[in-house]
């Protein structure tokens, strides 16, 4: 079986309680911030629904941005590939 080219740490060293506690505290803030993000998205949908159709060319702009984003993600795929196994 081929060895992994980059060893992955299998266990955390001892004495990391304070690090873990600080991280868990940040995760709580993260969860709140994500809820705010979802709320913003819902507000945007509600606001757009209230606008008269065609007042802003949002659909076309959205389609352009979404297409550009997918193109960028495709262009980054080579970076995201795992390094080849067994190669130095």
């Amino acid at each position, binding site marked *: 079986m081929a060895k992994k080219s980059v060893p992955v740490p299998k266990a955390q060293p001892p*004495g990391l309680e304070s*690090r873990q506690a600080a991280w868990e505290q940040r995760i709580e803030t993260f969860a709140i911030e994500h809820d705010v*993000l979802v709320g913003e*998205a819902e507000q945007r949908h509600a606001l*757009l629904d209230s606008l008269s159709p065609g007042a802003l060319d*949002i659909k076309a*702009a*959205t389609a352009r941005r979404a297409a550009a*984003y997918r193109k960028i993600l495709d262009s980054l795929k080579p970076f995201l590939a795992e390094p080849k196994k067994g190669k130095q």
Partner: protein
Amino acid sequence: MPRFTAPYPLFFNPSVAQSGTPGIADRPDFPPGGSWFLHLNSNPSAPSSAMALRSFGVQSQPIDDARGRLWTRSTQLFITTSINIRVPFFFSSGTFATARTAAAFSYFVEEFDASFRFVRAVTMPGEIVVVRQDFWWFSGSQTFTPVSSGPGFTIPNPVRGVLTATPNFFYRVWVDLNADIRAQGFGPGGGSSAIAQLAWDIDAIEVLFV
């Protein structure tokens, strides 16, 4: 001055915090034990967030470099690093929506007493901001040039007195990379996207007690 190079004895790499199914690539890189690759990208069609902490650390005691023995008085802790930042790519785009992409390096110092009981933990005030962009887009997109990219970066030393070291205590010095993205995805009207990507090598960590 105790100088440490990879592989470092301490590491703290908790699972990436995520909501809304963002894309994540997250792996050790070369050289082993001191390098990492991280890529976070938002979900194209729904609100998503991701937050990562990747950290390498070393442990030392207050040592008088000139005499080669432990200090018997209180000292000030100074840290120097050499960080190589590679393949950075930071992007956000939006129509009528918010987006965030960010990454920064900082020190986290833990103090243990002579019996190795935990005393306190301090996040040092100095940092290297690679990118920190928080946008409310009406309609636009941008690839952000990193403020810091390339070899030889050190996180600015904390000002004197930020951390006073006690004789015979133990100190763990961590070099943290904090990165995060959030975006709303593109729906029928408006939306946003974000990418944060970088690889980095911690070439050296030097710890000095003065």
